[in-house]
Protein backbone atom coordinates (compact mmCIF):
# COMPACT_ATOMS: atom_id res chain seq x y z
CA UNK A 1 0.00 0.00 0.00
CA UNK A 2 1.38 3.47 -0.88
CA UNK A 3 1.95 5.89 1.95
CA UNK A 4 -0.14 9.07 1.76
CA UNK A 5 1.95 12.15 0.95
CA UNK A 6 1.85 15.31 3.04
CA UNK A 7 -0.58 16.72 0.47
CA UNK A 8 -3.05 14.02 1.44
CA UNK A 9 -2.59 14.29 5.18
CA UNK A 10 -3.63 16.57 8.00
CA UNK A 11 -0.38 17.55 9.68
CA UNK A 12 0.17 19.07 13.10
CA UNK A 13 3.79 20.11 13.39
CA UNK A 14 4.74 20.67 17.03
CA UNK A 15 1.54 22.61 17.66
CA UNK A 16 0.78 24.27 20.97
CA UNK A 17 -2.15 26.49 21.78
CA UNK A 18 -2.55 28.50 24.96
CA UNK A 19 -5.60 30.61 25.80
CA UNK A 20 -3.80 33.15 27.97
CA UNK A 21 -2.37 30.97 30.72
CA UNK A 22 -4.69 28.08 30.00
CA UNK A 23 -3.33 25.18 28.00
CA UNK A 24 -5.37 24.12 25.01
CA UNK A 25 -3.04 21.57 23.46
CA UNK A 26 0.69 21.12 23.86
CA UNK A 27 3.37 19.96 21.42
CA UNK A 28 1.07 18.02 19.17
CA UNK A 29 2.71 16.16 16.30
CA UNK A 30 0.24 14.27 14.17
CA UNK A 31 -0.10 13.05 10.62
CA UNK A 32 -3.65 12.02 9.88
CA UNK A 33 -4.13 9.96 6.71
CA UNK A 34 -7.39 9.79 4.73
CA UNK A 35 -10.15 7.68 6.26
CA UNK A 36 -12.14 8.07 9.45
CA UNK A 37 -10.14 9.28 12.44
CA UNK A 38 -11.64 9.76 15.87
CA UNK A 39 -10.44 12.22 18.45
CA UNK A 40 -11.20 10.79 21.86
CA UNK A 41 -10.65 12.26 25.28
CA UNK A 42 -12.45 13.64 28.31
CA UNK A 43 -13.90 17.16 28.43
CA UNK A 44 -11.13 19.74 28.27
CA UNK A 45 -8.66 17.33 26.73
CA UNK A 46 -8.20 19.51 23.64
CA UNK A 47 -10.39 17.82 21.00
CA UNK A 48 -12.27 20.97 19.99
CA UNK A 49 -9.07 23.02 20.13
CA UNK A 50 -7.45 20.60 17.67
CA UNK A 51 -10.44 20.93 15.35
CA UNK A 52 -10.50 24.70 15.63
CA UNK A 53 -6.77 24.75 14.90
CA UNK A 54 -7.31 22.59 11.82
CA UNK A 55 -9.91 25.02 10.48
CA UNK A 56 -8.11 28.22 11.46
CA UNK A 57 -10.80 29.39 13.89
CA UNK A 58 -7.95 29.67 16.38
CA UNK A 59 -4.28 30.14 15.60
CA UNK A 60 -1.52 28.04 17.11
CA UNK A 61 0.65 29.76 19.68
CA UNK A 62 3.48 27.69 18.28
CA UNK A 63 3.92 25.32 15.35
CA UNK A 64 1.86 24.92 12.21
CA UNK A 65 -1.15 23.02 10.92
CA UNK A 66 -1.82 22.06 7.33
CA UNK A 67 -4.68 20.14 5.79
CA UNK A 68 -3.78 18.36 2.56
CA UNK A 69 -1.02 20.90 1.98
CA UNK A 70 -3.21 23.96 2.59
CA UNK A 71 -3.75 26.23 5.57
CA UNK A 72 -6.72 28.34 6.60
CA UNK A 73 -4.66 31.43 5.69
CA UNK A 74 -5.82 30.75 2.16
CA UNK A 75 -9.55 30.44 2.94
CA UNK A 76 -10.70 30.43 -0.66
CA UNK A 77 -8.97 27.14 -1.49
CA UNK A 78 -9.03 25.76 2.03
CA UNK A 79 -12.76 25.93 2.70
CA UNK A 80 -13.67 24.62 -0.75
CA UNK A 81 -12.00 21.44 0.48
CA UNK A 82 -12.93 21.47 4.17
CA UNK A 83 -16.31 21.25 5.85
CA UNK A 84 -16.52 21.79 9.61
CA UNK A 85 -19.53 20.88 11.69
CA UNK A 86 -18.65 22.73 14.87
CA UNK A 87 -20.09 22.28 18.31
CA UNK A 88 -21.31 25.91 18.52
CA UNK A 89 -25.05 25.56 18.92
CA UNK A 90 -25.85 29.05 17.68
CA UNK A 91 -27.16 30.44 14.42
CA UNK A 92 -27.69 33.80 12.78
CA UNK A 93 -30.96 35.28 14.05
CA UNK A 94 -34.20 34.58 12.23
CA UNK A 95 -32.64 32.23 9.69
CA UNK A 96 -34.32 29.09 8.33
CA UNK A 97 -32.51 25.80 7.86
CA UNK A 98 -32.61 26.19 4.08
CA UNK A 99 -31.27 29.75 4.25
CA UNK A 100 -28.40 28.67 6.50
CA UNK A 101 -27.24 26.04 4.03
CA UNK A 102 -28.05 28.06 0.92
CA UNK A 103 -26.30 31.21 2.18
CA UNK A 104 -23.15 29.22 2.88
CA UNK A 105 -23.20 27.90 -0.68
CA UNK A 106 -23.77 31.38 -2.08
CA UNK A 107 -20.70 32.49 -0.13
CA UNK A 108 -18.79 29.85 -2.06
CA UNK A 109 -19.49 31.99 -5.10
CA UNK A 110 -22.04 29.56 -6.57
CA UNK A 111 -24.94 30.82 -8.63
CA UNK A 112 -28.40 30.67 -7.09
CA UNK A 113 -29.53 27.58 -9.01
CA UNK A 114 -26.55 25.44 -8.10
CA UNK A 115 -26.63 26.63 -4.49
CA UNK A 116 -30.31 25.70 -4.29
CA UNK A 117 -29.70 22.23 -5.71
CA UNK A 118 -26.83 21.48 -3.35
CA UNK A 119 -28.71 22.90 -0.35
CA UNK A 120 -31.68 20.63 -1.08
CA UNK A 121 -29.37 17.65 -1.59
CA UNK A 122 -27.59 18.27 1.73
CA UNK A 123 -30.84 18.76 3.64
CA UNK A 124 -32.15 15.56 2.12
CA UNK A 125 -29.02 13.66 3.15
CA UNK A 126 -29.57 14.63 6.79
CA UNK A 127 -33.32 14.01 6.52
CA UNK A 128 -34.33 17.58 7.20
CA UNK A 129 -36.05 18.55 3.98
CA UNK A 130 -39.52 18.72 5.54
CA UNK A 131 -38.38 21.28 8.11
CA UNK A 132 -36.05 23.17 5.77
CA UNK A 133 -38.15 26.32 5.62
CA UNK A 134 -38.77 26.54 9.35
CA UNK A 135 -36.74 28.90 11.52
CA UNK A 136 -33.69 27.19 13.04
CA UNK A 137 -34.58 28.80 16.38
CA UNK A 138 -37.63 26.50 16.51
CA UNK A 139 -35.65 23.32 15.81
CA UNK A 140 -35.02 20.61 18.37
CA UNK A 141 -31.44 19.94 19.45
CA UNK A 142 -31.18 16.99 17.08
CA UNK A 143 -32.51 19.04 14.16
CA UNK A 144 -30.02 21.82 14.88
CA UNK A 145 -27.28 19.23 14.90
CA UNK A 146 -28.46 17.90 11.55
CA UNK A 147 -28.72 21.31 9.92
CA UNK A 148 -25.14 22.05 11.00
CA UNK A 149 -24.12 18.75 9.47
CA UNK A 150 -25.98 19.64 6.26
CA UNK A 151 -24.23 22.99 6.17
CA UNK A 152 -20.83 21.34 6.52
CA UNK A 153 -21.36 18.71 3.81
CA UNK A 154 -23.36 20.79 1.33
CA UNK A 155 -20.38 21.86 -0.80
CA UNK A 156 -19.15 18.25 -0.97
CA UNK A 157 -15.91 18.71 0.94
CA UNK A 158 -13.03 16.25 0.74
CA UNK A 159 -12.13 16.84 4.38
CA UNK A 160 -14.97 16.69 6.86
CA UNK A 161 -14.34 17.71 10.45
CA UNK A 162 -17.11 16.87 12.88
CA UNK A 163 -17.14 18.00 16.49
CA UNK A 164 -19.48 15.77 18.48
CA UNK A 165 -21.71 15.15 15.47
CA UNK A 166 -23.81 12.50 17.20
CA UNK A 167 -24.78 14.68 20.16
CA UNK A 168 -28.50 15.14 20.53
CA UNK A 169 -29.40 12.74 17.72
CA UNK A 170 -32.00 10.04 18.24
CA UNK A 171 -30.89 6.44 17.52
CA UNK A 172 -32.32 6.49 14.00
CA UNK A 173 -30.61 9.77 13.07
CA UNK A 174 -27.41 8.51 14.71
CA UNK A 175 -27.40 5.38 12.59
CA UNK A 176 -28.06 7.44 9.45
CA UNK A 177 -25.27 9.88 10.32
CA UNK A 178 -22.84 7.06 10.95
CA UNK A 179 -23.73 5.51 7.61
CA UNK A 180 -23.13 8.89 6.00
CA UNK A 181 -19.68 9.24 7.62
CA UNK A 182 -18.81 5.71 6.60
CA UNK A 183 -19.77 6.33 3.00
CA UNK A 184 -17.61 9.47 2.95
CA UNK A 185 -14.73 7.60 4.62
CA UNK A 186 -14.99 4.78 2.07
CA UNK A 187 -14.54 7.28 -0.75
CA UNK A 188 -11.00 7.81 0.56
CA UNK A 189 -11.81 11.21 1.99
CA UNK A 190 -10.85 12.57 5.38
CA UNK A 191 -13.38 12.37 8.18
CA UNK A 192 -12.20 13.57 11.57
CA UNK A 193 -14.72 12.98 14.34
CA UNK A 194 -14.71 13.80 18.00
CA UNK A 195 -17.27 11.99 20.03
CA UNK A 196 -18.11 10.93 23.54
CA UNK A 197 -20.02 7.94 22.28
CA UNK A 198 -17.09 5.58 22.20
CA UNK A 199 -18.80 2.39 21.08
CA UNK A 200 -20.13 4.19 18.02
CA UNK A 201 -16.79 5.84 17.32
CA UNK A 202 -15.28 2.40 17.57
CA UNK A 203 -17.59 1.00 14.93
CA UNK A 204 -16.68 3.55 12.30
CA UNK A 205 -13.09 4.64 12.97
CA UNK A 206 -10.06 3.52 11.04
CA UNK A 207 -7.80 5.10 13.63
CA UNK A 208 -7.96 6.98 16.85
CA UNK A 209 -6.17 9.90 18.52
CA UNK A 210 -6.40 9.79 22.29
CA UNK A 211 -6.08 13.10 24.09
CA UNK A 212 -5.73 13.95 27.72
CA UNK A 213 -5.12 17.37 29.29
CA UNK A 214 -3.97 18.83 26.00
CA UNK A 215 -1.52 16.07 25.14
CA UNK A 216 -1.77 13.31 22.59
CA UNK A 217 -1.61 10.12 24.64
CA UNK A 218 -1.74 7.66 21.75
CA UNK A 219 -2.56 7.62 18.07
CA UNK A 220 -2.86 5.13 15.27
CA UNK A 221 -5.04 2.24 14.13
CA UNK A 222 -7.14 1.02 17.03
CA UNK A 223 -5.59 -2.45 16.99
CA UNK A 224 -2.02 -1.19 16.88
CA UNK A 225 -2.67 1.30 19.68
CA UNK A 226 -4.13 -1.55 21.75
CA UNK A 227 -1.12 -3.73 21.04
CA UNK A 228 1.17 -0.98 22.28
CA UNK A 229 -0.54 -0.94 25.67
CA UNK A 230 1.70 -3.65 27.11
CA UNK A 231 0.80 -3.22 30.74
CA UNK A 232 -2.74 -4.43 30.11
CA UNK A 233 -2.84 -8.02 28.75
CA UNK A 234 -5.04 -8.46 25.68
CA UNK A 235 -8.38 -10.14 26.18
CA UNK A 236 -9.70 -12.65 23.64
CA UNK A 237 -13.11 -14.17 23.73
CA UNK A 238 -13.31 -17.67 22.23
CA UNK A 239 -16.56 -19.54 21.71
CA UNK A 240 -15.90 -23.25 21.29
CA UNK A 241 -17.16 -26.72 22.25
CA UNK A 242 -14.40 -27.50 24.76
CA UNK A 243 -13.30 -24.45 26.71
CA UNK A 244 -11.83 -26.51 29.62
CA UNK A 245 -9.29 -28.14 27.33
CA UNK A 246 -8.41 -24.81 25.82
CA UNK A 247 -7.97 -23.32 29.30
CA UNK A 248 -5.58 -26.09 30.36
CA UNK A 249 -3.50 -25.65 27.21
CA UNK A 250 -3.42 -21.88 27.63
CA UNK A 251 -2.15 -22.14 31.20
CA UNK A 252 0.72 -24.28 30.01
CA UNK A 253 2.08 -21.13 28.34
CA UNK A 254 3.94 -18.49 30.33
CA UNK A 255 2.28 -15.50 28.63
CA UNK A 256 -1.25 -16.40 29.74
CA UNK A 257 -2.49 -14.34 32.63
CA UNK A 258 -6.06 -15.49 33.05
CA UNK A 259 -8.59 -17.82 31.49
CA UNK A 260 -12.20 -17.52 32.53
CA UNK A 261 -14.77 -20.05 31.31
CA UNK A 262 -18.17 -18.60 30.42
CA UNK A 263 -21.12 -19.51 32.61
CA UNK A 264 -22.80 -21.43 29.76
CA UNK A 265 -19.68 -23.62 29.39
CA UNK A 266 -19.38 -22.80 25.70
CA UNK A 267 -16.78 -20.09 25.75
CA UNK A 268 -13.68 -18.75 27.41
CA UNK A 269 -12.14 -15.35 28.02
CA UNK A 270 -8.34 -15.41 27.82
CA UNK A 271 -6.01 -12.65 29.00
CA UNK A 272 -2.55 -12.91 27.49
CA UNK A 273 0.59 -10.81 27.24
CA UNK A 274 1.52 -12.25 23.85
CA UNK A 275 -1.38 -12.34 21.47
CA UNK A 276 0.66 -13.79 18.60
CA UNK A 277 1.69 -16.85 20.60
CA UNK A 278 -1.86 -17.36 21.75
CA UNK A 279 -3.18 -17.36 18.19
CA UNK A 280 -0.46 -19.85 17.18
CA UNK A 281 -1.54 -22.13 19.97
CA UNK A 282 -5.17 -21.79 19.02
CA UNK A 283 -4.38 -22.64 15.40
CA UNK A 284 -2.55 -25.80 16.50
CA UNK A 285 -5.41 -26.92 18.72
CA UNK A 286 -8.00 -26.33 16.02
CA UNK A 287 -5.93 -28.09 13.34
CA UNK A 288 -5.48 -31.08 15.64
CA UNK A 289 -9.26 -31.28 15.95
CA UNK A 290 -9.27 -31.17 19.75
CA UNK A 291 -11.51 -28.09 19.80
CA UNK A 292 -14.20 -26.89 17.43
CA UNK A 293 -14.33 -23.11 17.16
CA UNK A 294 -17.50 -21.11 16.88
CA UNK A 295 -16.06 -17.59 17.15
CA UNK A 296 -12.89 -15.74 18.16
CA UNK A 297 -12.86 -12.03 18.85
CA UNK A 298 -10.71 -9.57 20.76
CA UNK A 299 -12.64 -8.47 23.83
CA UNK A 300 -10.80 -5.23 24.61
CA UNK A 301 -9.46 -4.20 21.23
CA UNK A 302 -11.73 -1.19 21.08
CA UNK A 303 -11.66 2.52 21.75
CA UNK A 304 -13.46 2.16 25.06
CA UNK A 305 -10.88 -0.23 26.48
CA UNK A 306 -7.95 1.76 25.13
CA UNK A 307 -9.49 4.85 26.64
CA UNK A 308 -9.87 3.12 30.02
CA UNK A 309 -6.33 1.81 30.00
CA UNK A 310 -4.63 5.01 28.87
CA UNK A 311 -6.73 7.75 30.35
CA UNK A 312 -8.06 5.96 33.33
CA UNK A 313 -11.77 6.66 33.52
CA UNK A 314 -14.62 4.72 32.01
CA UNK A 315 -15.11 5.91 28.46
CA UNK A 316 -18.79 5.25 28.63
CA UNK A 317 -19.30 7.87 31.29
CA UNK A 318 -17.29 10.75 29.86
Amino acid at each position, binding site marked *: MTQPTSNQQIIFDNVSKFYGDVLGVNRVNLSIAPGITSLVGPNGSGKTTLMNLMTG*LVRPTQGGVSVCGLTADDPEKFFKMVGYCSQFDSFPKGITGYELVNNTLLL*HGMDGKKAHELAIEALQRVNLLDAAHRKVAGYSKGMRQRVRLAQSIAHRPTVLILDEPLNGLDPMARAESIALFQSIGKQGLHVVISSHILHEVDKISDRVVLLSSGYVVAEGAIHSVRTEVKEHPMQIMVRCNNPSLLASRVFALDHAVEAKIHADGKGILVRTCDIEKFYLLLNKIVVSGEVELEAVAPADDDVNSIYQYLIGSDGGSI
Partner: protein
Amino acid sequence: MATAEWHKWWTQFVVIAKMEYRKNVFTKRGLWIYFLAFAPVFIIGAHGLESPMGKRCSMGEDTRILAGIIMFFYVRLGIFFGCLGLFTWLFRGEVVQKSLHYYFLAPVRREVLVLGKYVAGVATAVTLFGAGVLLSYVLMYGHFGVAGQNFTFDGPGLMHLRNYLLITVLACIGYGSIFLALSLVVKNPIVPGTMVFLWEAISGVFPPIIQKLSITFYLKGLAPVELPSEGILALFTVVAEPVPLWLALPGFGLVVCAMLAFACWRIHSLEISYSAE
Protein backbone atom coordinates in the same frame (compact mmCIF):
# COMPACT_ATOMS: atom_id res chain seq x y z
CA MET B 1 -7.66 34.35 -14.25
CA ALA B 2 -7.57 37.72 -12.50
CA THR B 3 -10.97 38.59 -13.96
CA ALA B 4 -12.41 35.32 -12.63
CA GLU B 5 -11.00 36.10 -9.17
CA TRP B 6 -12.50 39.57 -9.19
CA HIS B 7 -15.82 38.17 -10.36
CA LYS B 8 -15.83 35.68 -7.51
CA TRP B 9 -14.93 38.35 -4.95
CA TRP B 10 -17.62 40.62 -6.33
CA THR B 11 -20.22 37.83 -6.14
CA GLN B 12 -19.25 37.04 -2.55
CA PHE B 13 -19.20 40.72 -1.66
CA VAL B 14 -22.72 41.20 -3.03
CA VAL B 15 -24.00 38.13 -1.15
CA ILE B 16 -22.51 39.35 2.12
CA ALA B 17 -23.72 42.93 1.64
CA LYS B 18 -27.27 41.78 0.87
CA MET B 19 -27.46 39.42 3.84
CA GLU B 20 -26.01 42.02 6.19
CA TYR B 21 -28.24 44.83 4.91
CA ARG B 22 -31.33 42.72 5.56
CA LYS B 23 -30.01 41.85 9.00
CA ASN B 24 -29.27 45.51 9.84
CA VAL B 25 -32.53 46.97 8.64
CA PHE B 26 -34.95 44.37 9.97
CA THR B 27 -33.84 44.11 13.55
CA LYS B 28 -35.59 45.09 16.74
CA ARG B 29 -32.22 45.88 18.21
CA GLY B 30 -31.85 48.77 15.78
CA LEU B 31 -35.10 50.52 16.71
CA TRP B 32 -33.24 53.23 18.59
CA ILE B 33 -31.36 54.07 15.38
CA TYR B 34 -34.71 54.54 13.64
CA PHE B 35 -35.62 56.88 16.48
CA LEU B 36 -32.41 58.89 16.01
CA ALA B 37 -33.00 59.11 12.28
CA PHE B 38 -36.60 60.19 12.43
CA ALA B 39 -36.93 62.16 15.70
CA PRO B 40 -36.28 65.52 13.93
CA VAL B 41 -38.87 64.60 11.30
CA PHE B 42 -41.57 64.47 13.96
CA ILE B 43 -40.40 67.71 15.55
CA ILE B 44 -40.30 69.51 12.19
CA GLY B 45 -43.67 67.98 11.32
CA ALA B 46 -45.11 69.36 14.56
CA HIS B 47 -43.55 72.74 13.77
CA GLY B 48 -45.26 72.66 10.34
CA LEU B 49 -48.63 71.88 11.92
CA GLU B 50 -48.18 74.68 14.41
CA SER B 51 -47.28 77.15 11.69
CA PRO B 52 -49.35 76.30 8.59
CA MET B 53 -48.26 78.08 5.40
CA GLY B 54 -45.33 79.56 7.35
CA LYS B 55 -47.56 82.01 9.20
CA ARG B 56 -45.56 82.07 12.41
CA CYS B 57 -42.05 81.71 11.03
CA SER B 58 -39.77 82.90 8.28
CA MET B 59 -38.08 80.85 5.61
CA GLY B 60 -34.68 82.37 6.42
CA GLU B 61 -34.99 81.34 10.04
CA ASP B 62 -36.22 77.84 9.15
CA THR B 63 -33.34 77.45 6.69
CA ARG B 64 -30.88 78.18 9.52
CA ILE B 65 -32.77 75.84 11.85
CA LEU B 66 -32.65 73.04 9.27
CA ALA B 67 -28.92 73.63 8.77
CA GLY B 68 -28.47 73.44 12.55
CA ILE B 69 -30.48 70.23 12.74
CA ILE B 70 -28.40 68.65 9.98
CA MET B 71 -24.98 69.83 11.15
CA PHE B 72 -25.48 69.54 14.91
CA PHE B 73 -28.17 66.93 15.47
CA TYR B 74 -27.64 64.59 12.54
CA VAL B 75 -23.89 64.87 11.95
CA ARG B 76 -22.73 65.32 15.56
CA LEU B 77 -25.30 63.14 17.34
CA GLY B 78 -27.72 61.11 15.24
CA ILE B 79 -25.40 59.77 12.57
CA PHE B 80 -22.50 59.61 15.01
CA PHE B 81 -24.27 57.43 17.57
CA GLY B 82 -26.27 55.58 14.93
CA CYS B 83 -23.05 54.57 13.20
CA LEU B 84 -21.45 53.77 16.56
CA GLY B 85 -24.26 51.30 17.28
CA LEU B 86 -24.46 49.94 13.78
CA PHE B 87 -20.83 49.50 12.82
CA THR B 88 -19.44 48.31 16.13
CA TRP B 89 -22.15 45.61 16.07
CA LEU B 90 -21.18 44.28 12.64
CA PHE B 91 -18.52 41.97 14.04
CA ARG B 92 -19.07 42.24 17.79
CA GLY B 93 -22.71 41.32 17.30
CA GLU B 94 -21.68 38.14 15.52
CA VAL B 95 -19.30 37.34 18.35
CA VAL B 96 -21.97 37.97 20.99
CA GLN B 97 -24.49 35.85 19.06
CA LYS B 98 -21.79 33.24 18.41
CA SER B 99 -22.37 33.16 14.69
CA LEU B 100 -19.15 34.63 13.29
CA HIS B 101 -17.72 31.18 12.60
CA TYR B 102 -20.21 30.71 9.75
CA TYR B 103 -18.42 33.46 7.86
CA PHE B 104 -14.97 32.33 8.94
CA LEU B 105 -15.65 28.80 7.70
CA ALA B 106 -16.68 29.97 4.24
CA PRO B 107 -14.17 30.24 1.38
CA VAL B 108 -14.21 34.01 1.58
CA ARG B 109 -11.24 36.31 1.95
CA ARG B 110 -11.60 38.17 5.20
CA GLU B 111 -11.06 41.46 3.35
CA VAL B 112 -14.16 40.71 1.26
CA LEU B 113 -16.07 40.01 4.46
CA VAL B 114 -14.98 43.32 6.03
CA LEU B 115 -15.88 45.31 2.92
CA GLY B 116 -19.21 43.51 2.45
CA LYS B 117 -20.24 44.19 6.02
CA TYR B 118 -19.00 47.77 5.84
CA VAL B 119 -20.92 48.58 2.67
CA ALA B 120 -24.06 46.98 4.13
CA GLY B 121 -23.60 49.17 7.21
CA VAL B 122 -23.16 52.30 5.09
CA ALA B 123 -26.21 51.38 2.99
CA THR B 124 -28.28 50.89 6.15
CA ALA B 125 -27.14 54.16 7.72
CA VAL B 126 -27.68 56.08 4.48
CA THR B 127 -31.15 54.56 4.06
CA LEU B 128 -32.22 55.58 7.54
CA PHE B 129 -30.49 58.93 7.95
CA GLY B 130 -30.88 59.87 4.28
CA ALA B 131 -34.61 59.29 4.59
CA GLY B 132 -34.62 61.29 7.84
CA VAL B 133 -32.82 64.24 6.22
CA LEU B 134 -35.01 64.11 3.10
CA LEU B 135 -38.23 64.06 5.13
CA SER B 136 -36.93 66.83 7.39
CA TYR B 137 -36.30 68.97 4.32
CA VAL B 138 -39.68 68.21 2.77
CA LEU B 139 -41.54 69.03 5.98
CA MET B 140 -39.45 72.10 6.73
CA TYR B 141 -40.28 73.74 3.39
CA GLY B 142 -43.52 71.92 2.69
CA HIS B 143 -45.51 73.98 5.16
CA PHE B 144 -44.56 77.17 3.30
CA GLY B 145 -46.65 75.98 0.37
CA VAL B 146 -45.88 77.69 -2.95
CA ALA B 147 -43.05 79.72 -1.39
CA GLY B 148 -41.41 76.48 -0.30
CA GLN B 149 -41.81 75.02 -3.79
CA ASN B 150 -40.26 78.11 -5.34
CA PHE B 151 -37.36 77.96 -2.88
CA THR B 152 -36.75 74.35 -3.81
CA PHE B 153 -37.20 74.35 -7.57
CA ASP B 154 -36.43 77.93 -8.53
CA GLY B 155 -34.09 78.88 -5.69
CA PRO B 156 -31.15 77.30 -3.90
CA GLY B 157 -33.29 74.58 -2.27
CA LEU B 158 -32.26 71.64 -4.42
CA MET B 159 -28.59 72.54 -3.97
CA HIS B 160 -29.13 72.66 -0.20
CA LEU B 161 -30.85 69.28 -0.27
CA ARG B 162 -28.12 67.75 -2.44
CA ASN B 163 -25.43 69.02 -0.04
CA TYR B 164 -27.30 67.81 3.04
CA LEU B 165 -27.66 64.37 1.50
CA LEU B 166 -23.99 64.38 0.47
CA ILE B 167 -23.02 65.35 4.03
CA THR B 168 -25.21 62.51 5.35
CA VAL B 169 -23.65 59.96 3.02
CA LEU B 170 -20.10 61.12 3.79
CA ALA B 171 -20.78 61.16 7.54
CA CYS B 172 -22.04 57.56 7.35
CA ILE B 173 -19.00 56.53 5.31
CA GLY B 174 -16.54 58.32 7.59
CA TYR B 175 -17.93 57.43 11.00
CA GLY B 176 -18.69 53.93 9.77
CA SER B 177 -15.09 53.26 8.85
CA ILE B 178 -13.82 54.56 12.19
CA PHE B 179 -16.26 52.53 14.27
CA LEU B 180 -15.75 49.38 12.25
CA ALA B 181 -11.99 49.63 12.79
CA LEU B 182 -12.48 50.39 16.51
CA SER B 183 -14.77 47.39 16.97
CA LEU B 184 -11.93 45.12 15.87
CA VAL B 185 -9.61 46.54 18.51
CA VAL B 186 -11.75 46.91 21.62
CA LYS B 187 -14.63 44.83 22.97
CA ASN B 188 -16.52 47.73 24.51
CA PRO B 189 -16.93 50.65 22.10
CA ILE B 190 -18.21 53.13 24.71
CA VAL B 191 -14.84 54.53 25.80
CA PRO B 192 -13.29 54.98 22.34
CA GLY B 193 -16.68 56.16 21.05
CA THR B 194 -16.76 58.86 23.71
CA MET B 195 -13.22 59.87 22.83
CA VAL B 196 -14.07 60.20 19.14
CA PHE B 197 -17.21 62.14 20.09
CA LEU B 198 -15.22 64.60 22.21
CA TRP B 199 -12.58 64.89 19.53
CA GLU B 200 -15.18 65.74 16.89
CA ALA B 201 -16.75 68.27 19.26
CA ILE B 202 -13.58 70.13 20.26
CA SER B 203 -11.39 69.66 17.18
CA GLY B 204 -12.44 73.13 16.05
CA VAL B 205 -10.25 74.77 18.73
CA PHE B 206 -7.08 73.13 17.37
CA PRO B 207 -4.88 74.48 14.58
CA PRO B 208 -6.21 73.79 11.06
CA ILE B 209 -3.67 71.05 10.39
CA ILE B 210 -5.00 69.02 13.35
CA GLN B 211 -8.62 69.81 12.49
CA LYS B 212 -8.05 67.85 9.28
CA LEU B 213 -8.03 64.66 11.36
CA SER B 214 -11.73 64.96 12.14
CA ILE B 215 -14.68 63.93 10.01
CA THR B 216 -16.71 67.08 10.71
CA PHE B 217 -13.90 69.26 9.35
CA TYR B 218 -14.50 67.93 5.84
CA LEU B 219 -18.26 68.01 6.19
CA LYS B 220 -18.41 71.61 7.44
CA GLY B 221 -17.10 72.81 4.10
CA LEU B 222 -20.03 71.21 2.33
CA ALA B 223 -22.70 72.88 4.45
CA PRO B 224 -24.78 75.20 2.23
CA VAL B 225 -25.59 77.48 5.17
CA GLU B 226 -22.82 78.77 7.41
CA LEU B 227 -23.47 78.34 11.10
CA PRO B 228 -21.23 80.45 13.31
CA SER B 229 -19.97 78.92 16.55
CA GLU B 230 -21.89 80.04 19.57
CA GLY B 231 -21.32 80.01 23.29
CA ILE B 232 -18.05 79.48 25.14
CA LEU B 233 -16.58 77.30 22.39
CA ALA B 234 -16.83 80.20 19.94
CA LEU B 235 -14.13 82.02 21.94
CA PHE B 236 -11.60 79.28 21.24
CA THR B 237 -12.64 78.23 17.76
CA VAL B 238 -9.92 78.53 15.16
CA VAL B 239 -11.49 79.29 11.84
CA ALA B 240 -9.78 77.09 9.30
CA GLU B 241 -9.80 77.83 5.61
CA PRO B 242 -12.44 75.56 4.08
CA VAL B 243 -10.83 72.86 2.03
CA PRO B 244 -11.84 72.93 -1.63
CA LEU B 245 -14.01 70.00 -2.65
CA TRP B 246 -11.38 68.57 -5.01
CA LEU B 247 -9.02 68.29 -2.05
CA ALA B 248 -11.57 67.54 0.67
CA LEU B 249 -12.97 64.44 -0.99
CA PRO B 250 -9.60 62.71 -1.61
CA GLY B 251 -8.50 63.67 1.92
CA PHE B 252 -11.69 62.25 3.35
CA GLY B 253 -11.33 59.17 1.16
CA LEU B 254 -7.79 58.69 2.41
CA VAL B 255 -8.96 58.69 6.05
CA VAL B 256 -11.70 56.16 5.21
CA CYS B 257 -9.31 53.93 3.23
CA ALA B 258 -6.78 54.00 6.06
CA MET B 259 -9.48 52.91 8.53
CA LEU B 260 -10.71 50.12 6.26
CA ALA B 261 -7.17 48.94 5.54
CA PHE B 262 -6.58 48.75 9.29
CA ALA B 263 -9.83 46.79 9.74
CA CYS B 264 -8.81 44.36 6.96
CA TRP B 265 -5.43 43.83 8.58
CA ARG B 266 -6.95 43.45 12.02
CA ILE B 267 -9.58 40.87 11.01
CA HIS B 268 -6.82 38.41 10.14
CA SER B 269 -5.82 38.12 13.79
CA LEU B 270 -9.40 37.62 14.98
CA GLU B 271 -9.97 34.16 16.46
CA ILE B 272 -13.20 32.44 17.35
CA SER B 273 -13.14 32.07 21.10
CA TYR B 274 -16.69 32.75 22.17
CA SER B 275 -16.14 31.49 25.70
CA ALA B 276 -13.58 34.25 26.26
CA GLU B 277 -16.22 36.91 25.52
